[in-house]
């Protein structure tokens, strides 16, 4: 469903000059699995997911989502993905219902499908009690639910979650993760980025550890642990990163 091959993205930043955000990244994600991108802040996770969601154009390399190229068939890609990130906001002056309905229509859905689908989602996510509350009056948990509803309203085959639990308390974060896990049950192809090891261990079928725009290691969590001989993920993570740092220091 998601196919990424030698993907690179360079930015020009006036403080640091040309910045490599992604360099030669390749991976595949299949339906019914959750693929985790694990990396520290600034590793290139967000850039990678933004390229997949077509808002950024890659400098080089290929990325296809649900069989469509992100570069040449961006509109088709966008129609088939749901994207949610920890800092995507919701409109302050719109109610929960209006917001989800708005996006349903932008995705080309028509009545009566819209209200049917909305009722269904509002019921599963238990959102009916605040369906007429304005965004500015919602709690963080409510907002996050609205974001999830917005992400899945058009029933996309591919879902992209960019650090969806940032800034959430344990309860809300748990609910979000639960929702993501249930989406896997529905056979969705899910890519999920985070810097929290526990989430990876709990949720992901396969993981790629990314640092400074490069993938350092990829595989199932158990595979990775076995290969390195480390007992837990945190140790594995630190070892990989420090080894990469050493390599970089040596080459430069």
């Amino acid at each position, binding site marked *: 469903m998601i196919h990424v091959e030698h993907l690179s993205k360079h*930015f*020009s*930043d*006036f*403080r640091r*000059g*040309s910045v490599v955000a992604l360099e030669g990244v390749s991976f595949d994600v299949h339906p019914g699995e959750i693929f985790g991108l694990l990396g520290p802040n600034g590793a290139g996770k967000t850039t990678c997911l*933004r390229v997949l*969601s*077509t*808002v*950024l*154009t890659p400098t080089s390399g290929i990325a296809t989502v649900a069989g469509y190229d*992100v*570069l*040449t*068939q*961006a*509109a088709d890609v*966008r*129609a088939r*993905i749901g*994207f949610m*990130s920890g*800092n*995507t*906001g*919701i*409109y*302050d*002056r*719109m109610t929960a219902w209006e917001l989800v309905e*708005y*996006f349903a*229509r*932008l*995705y*080309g859905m028509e009545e009566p499908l819209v209200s049917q689908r909305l009722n269904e989602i509002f019921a599963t996510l238990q959102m009916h009690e605040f369906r007429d509350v*304005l965004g500015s009056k919602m709690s963080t948990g409510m907002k996050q639910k609205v974001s999830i509803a*917005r992400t899945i309203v058009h029933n996309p085959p591919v879902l992209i979650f960019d650090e969806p639990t940032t800034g959430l308390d344990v309860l809300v974060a748990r609910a979000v993760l639960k929702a993501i896990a249930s989406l896997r049950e529905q056979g969705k192809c899910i890519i999920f980025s985070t810097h929290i090891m526990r989430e990876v261990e709990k949720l992901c079928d396969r993981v790629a550890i990314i640092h400074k725009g490069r993938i350092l290691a990829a595989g199932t969590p158990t595979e990775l642990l076995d290969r390195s001989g480390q007992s837990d993920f945190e140790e594995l993570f630190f070892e990989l990163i420090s080894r990469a740092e050493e390599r970089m220091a040596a080459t430069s």
Partner: protein
Amino acid sequence: MNRKNVRLVFLREVRDQIRDRRTLFMIVVLPLILYPGLAIGMVQISFLFKEQPRTIVLLGTDNLPADPPLLSGNHFASQWFAVPDDADKLHVIHDGTRNPPEVSPQEKADSEANAGLLEEGRDLAGKSQQLEELEKKQDAARKDHNEADEQRLADEIRSLKEELAERFSASKIQVLIVAPQGLKQEVERINHALAARGKDARPDAGEADRVRLLVVQNSADEKSSFAYQRVRLVLTAWEQRILQERLSEAKLPATLAKPVDPELLDVAIARQVSASLWSKLFPTLLIIMAVTGAFYPAVDVAAGEKERGTMETLLISPARRSEIVLGKFFTVVTFSVSTVLLNLLSMGITGKYLISLARNEALTRMGADSLSFPGPWEMMWLILLLLPLSAFYSAISLALATFARSTKEGQYYLTPLLLVTLGLTMFCLSPVVEIDPFYSILPVVGPALLLKEVLASPGSSAPLVYGIPVLATSIAYSLAGLWWAISMFNREDVLFREAERFDVRLWIRHLLRDKEATPSLLEGGLCFVLLILLQFVAFRFLQSGVVVSDGHIDPASTLRLLLIQQMVFVGSPALFMGIMLTTSVWRTFRLRLPNWRYLVVGCVLPLAVGPLSVALQNWLQGWFFPPLPKPVEELMNSLGEQTLPLWFVLLAMAIAPGICEELAFRGFILSGFARSARPAVAIGLSAIAFGAFHIIPQQVFNATLVGLILGLLAIRSESLIPSVLFHIIYNSIETVRVRAGDSIVQVPVLKWFVASEPSVTGYNTLALVVAGVVATLLIAWLIFGGQKAKTMAETAHEAASDEPMGRPRTPEPAISTRSMD
């Protein structure tokens, strides 16, 4: 383009704005309460307002002719005022004894202060008389050609004047009147002499010895000059009466002093008075309201969306960027238009109501039914012109707001936008500025002037003549603005701009460190700004050098300066920027030998384009462009003179600009633009920059058109040489033709093409037709032909990446047919 998505975005944004209390307040509540509130405030102030009486000191009161009396108590007599009550506004302190004013206890208390003022007045009067005497002496010295004396007296006068001005400002006197000894007697003597008809041999005392009233005021001081205006009217009225009496005493007709006495008949009818009021107020207010009405919603829908983190969500929806921008754009237009209409409505109703309340005669004359709203025809034009204006400002505001990282940053962009707009509207307010073909195609100015015309003279034919060009260009400007807004939305560096600390040092270091082969878009733009600024600096340098003593220009020195200006202010800065900011000077300035075909085109094309552009210029000159500034015209004419060596004229007028301007505009600037914009856009932008660099409207127009061809030539040939050749030959043709004059007719082939009679163009129809055909063919070859194989590859490439975001950046792709149409 999916219209449903545009509508969805539009409806959402409108609902969002309506739910926002700030927007509602700005757009609906403010106009509805602002004008009535202001009106109430004005009424209140008018009750509080009391004009402070001004102090006039009159010395030598007893020397004034007693009849008719100028004074009444310590005021001027009220009969000398058009509005008798105004007499109270001037407080006269005088030294009259014969007619002691009825002194009230209050005034008794003031008398001491008055005495002080009189003393000051006397002192000032003494100084003034001294000044007059010095001036007389100076005149005498000048007549005697006594330069030493004249100089000494001039110095004395200056210091005395300074002292007088200082003392006068320091005193509490606004106007000082001095009646000299013998004034009364002089008036009476002449009265008698005139009545006795010639019995006195010398009725007039002669200008030099005349006894006159001296009035001292300080026009730099507002209080003083205002008081003087009143005093002057009083004295004129009083003097008129003295004259009347003198005439009647001498049994002369009262009309003696007014042989023709022009009578004023004001045919303005109330409707026109109000029309002229509207025509002044409406365009200005309309434009300012259109800006502010567009700006705040634009900041909210673009920068606000970024700030709240909802932008990314929207971008990931299947709606295209253009659909999102259009939806937002229509929202902003809606609010801009409603702001304008509500403001004008509220203002109109308040103004009308206020005037209907007024009892003042001057106001009622244009009050009640006269201050009616413009009629339906005018209102139709108002709305018709308002729409593109609002659209223009909405698009610009939206682009700026998209660029901004936050709403706070967005607000900062309002001030420059508003200032430029204010400058333009101030220009349009001037009564001498009227709509003409040239103004009609300028942004903002065109609609403003047309609206002024429509409102000022209802039923004028202006809208029929200028309506189409004004509307067409306004719509074109709005579309350009919209295109800019959409392109802002397509730039990922704009959409995902992180808040980074701006530091000039860091930025310069970045420019010097992260050099690339060719300049960036920003660097290209900077080069243009630098050239414009240098041009501005060079003005002074050019101006000081060219004008010879008698106000005419000296062609030789002008040409020398032009040559220096080209090298110092155009060529060198561009070269310097190229060397400092890029790694490949060769690629930046396209310094390579092109295919020989382009060299041929570079030489032949100007021969065809030159006559065409001369013909076009001449045709436009009559009705479209304002006349050329006189010095430019003089210079143009002087170039035909045989006194200057031809090589020198060509060096300054053709070779230097050909090389220097090409290095700058087709070299650095075009390379910069071409790196991030499509070739067609880059050529267009560089042509506009090239045009803007030429200050005179005619040349701006011409240079923009020629700039398009030059840019095309440079991009297609990937070399600067053809465009340098083109530029040199193009500039040479006119010079050579003017100089050769009639001798061309003797050359066998050329004589067919030159108009046999000295016509306006200098070329005959045959020449123009041939030139037109040749030019069309060559330009078509440049656009479509030439590198056919490459073009096809490019087309395929472009077609594959149709999606706006999905266009990979190629360093400098050749023009494809697709992007040119």
